[in-house]
């Protein structure tokens, strides 16, 4: 019985030993498992040496092939500018046209001649211009003053008759 117990303990110790064995101590783990393409190191070293070599840097670089000069080559900037102006003008014109199309229509009544006011009617009948009236008002001299009010009573009377005022009313004015 005791022998069996000690054997069991030994097995347990062995298992523990295996578990605690330093797995990282295995030499196979230190071997390199990675690979590189064939001839990589030689090619890489050559590439690095080419990169650092000043003679390589001083080698004349291939010049860019010359582009043949054409009409477009010379006038491209001017054409571009003209195109921009044309686009801007076109856009402005379009906006104007669109606003014109969609603008609300003015009622016909507003476009007709508005009826004259009484004062305007009087002025038109008397055949005097607005300037005359203003000029008359602007003068301060006594000589000119009567000229501005040179409307005779007969003319007023005639106007009232023409306007359809009753004669009785006109008589009372006198």
């Amino acid at each position, binding site marked *: 019985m005791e022998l069996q117990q000690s054997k069991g303990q030994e097995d347990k110790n062995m298992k523990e030993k*295996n*578990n605690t064995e*330093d*797995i*990282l101590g*295995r030499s*196979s*783990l*230190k*071997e*390199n*498992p*990675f*690979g*590189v*393409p064939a001839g*990589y*190191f030689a090619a*890489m*070293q050559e*590439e*690095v*040496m080419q*990169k*650092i*070599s000043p003679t390589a840097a001083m080698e004349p670089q291939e010049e860019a092939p010359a582009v043949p000069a054409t009409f477009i080559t010379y006038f491209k900037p001017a054409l571009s500018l003209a195109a921009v102006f044309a686009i801007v003008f076109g856009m402005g014109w379009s906006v104007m046209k669109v606003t014109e199309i969609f603008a609300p229509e003015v009622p016909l009544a507003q476009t007709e001649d508005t009826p004259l006011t009484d004062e305007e009617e009087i002025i038109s009948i008397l055949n005097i211009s607005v300037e005359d009236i203003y000029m008359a008002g602007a003068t301060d001299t006594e000589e000119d003053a009567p000229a501005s009010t040179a409307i005779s009573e007969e003319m007023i009377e005639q106007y009232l008759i023409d306007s359809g005022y009753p004669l009785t009313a006109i008589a009372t004015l006198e």
Partner: protein
Amino acid sequence: MNIEDKEILKLYREEGKQEFAFNLLVQKYSERLYWHIRKLTCSHEDSNDILQGALIKIWEHLPAFREESKLYTWIYRIATNETLTFLKKKRIAAMFSLSSYDSTLASKLQSDPSFNGDKLQMALHKAILHLPDKQRAVFSLRYFQELKYEEIAEIMETSVGSLKASYHHAYKKIKDELQEQFAD
């Protein structure tokens, strides 16, 4: 390539022999640097780009090398920094595309036709990808390149103490991950 670093530097300082000396340096270190970078990136194309960039940087800065550190630790430092910068950029780019760069690397590794290792090796390299970038570099330099802690400290510009802690932490994480998969 058995030429000593000192001889390479001596040649480099002779007039008109800079390119020749640098060529010797490239021949001596390019392969080692490549494998170091490849273990961090898992991609041949990325490793090639990083390595070429690092070698050109070495060429550009070699005139200013004052021999305050060993030539090979200086070279390794440039290559490691270039790789860490590359990984950082990729991680940021992956963040913007709402993906994980670690899972991208893992799938690259899984589908890499040039990978000739067994299941355990595959598991090891996948576990390495789970480490933070700097810890991954420390682990790679110590475990695969078998550099001394002092040399790694010089490369990573850190103290030996923090480096040892970082390496043991990485080692334990990977060991636990592998034992979880390969316990039986």
